[in-house]
C-alpha cells in the first residue's frame, strides 16, 4: 500500500477522458477516488466499470448525494467515504495523482 498511488478523478467519464486515462496508468495496487463530477463514474456499466471494479475504488458520498445518485444502480465495489477518510487515504498512499 505505502508505495502505491491514490488517483483522484473529478470529471464526468461521459464527457471527459480523465477516468479512462487514470485507468491506463494505474497499477494493481493503486486506488481510485471519484469526487465532484467524477462520481458520475459510479453509473458506468460494461468495460470501464469492469476496470474500475478491478481496483480499490472510493467515491465521496456527499458528491453522490448532491447529484441524486444514491437512488441509482451503482457500479459494485465502490466504497462511499467522507473527506476525513479521503485524508486518511492520502496518508496511506505514498503519492497522489489528480486527474481533472
Amino acid at each position, binding site marked *: 500500500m505505502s508505495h502505491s498511488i491514490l488517483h483522484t478523478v473529478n470529471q464526468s467519464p461521459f464527457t471527459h477522458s480523465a477516468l479512462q486515462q487514470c485507468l491506463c496508468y494505474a497499477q494493481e495496487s493503486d486506488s481510485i477516488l471519484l469526487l465532484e*463530477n467524477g462520481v458520475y463514474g459510479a*453509473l458506468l456499466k460494461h468495460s470501464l466499470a469492469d476496470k474500475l471494479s478491478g481496483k480499490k475504488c472510493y467515491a465521496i458520498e456527499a458528491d453522490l448525494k448532491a447529484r*441524486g*445518485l444514491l437512488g441509482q444502480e451503482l457500479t459494485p465495489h465502490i466504497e462511499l467515504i467522507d473527506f476525513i477518510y479521503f485524508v486518511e487515504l492520502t496518508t496511506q498512499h505514498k503519492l497522489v495523482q489528480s486527474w481533472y
Partner: protein
Amino acid sequence: MTSSKKIGITLGHTPYGSDLAQEALDATLAMGLFGQDITLIFWGDGVFQLLKSQNSESVHQKSLEKQINAFELYDIERVFVCAQSLEQRNISTSSLCTDAECLSPTEIQKVLSTQDTLLSF
C-alpha cells in the same frame, strides 16, 4: 420580430462541478420573465441536471430543483431531454424530477431547426 422570436436554450453540462448549470437556468428563467418563446433541450451531461433527489446541501450549493420547478410559472413549457444521452448514462426517465419529453437525436435536430436563435450552455 420581437414578440415572436423562438429561443432555443441547450444545456449540456453537469449540475454542480461548476456553477455554469445554475447560471444557465437563471438565464433561462430571466428569458421566460422577458416573455420569450422558449424551448429547453437537455442533452449530454446536461441530462444530469434533471435527476430527482438531488441534495445539493451536502456540497454547500443551491439546488437546481427550485429553478426547474419554476419552469411552468415562467411559462416555459417545451422541455426536451435527449433519450440517447439518458440511455448512455444508464438513467431511466422515471428518475427525472420533471416530465420533460424524451426525444431521439433526430427529433432534437427537428426541434433545433425550428428555433430563431440558440443559447448554448
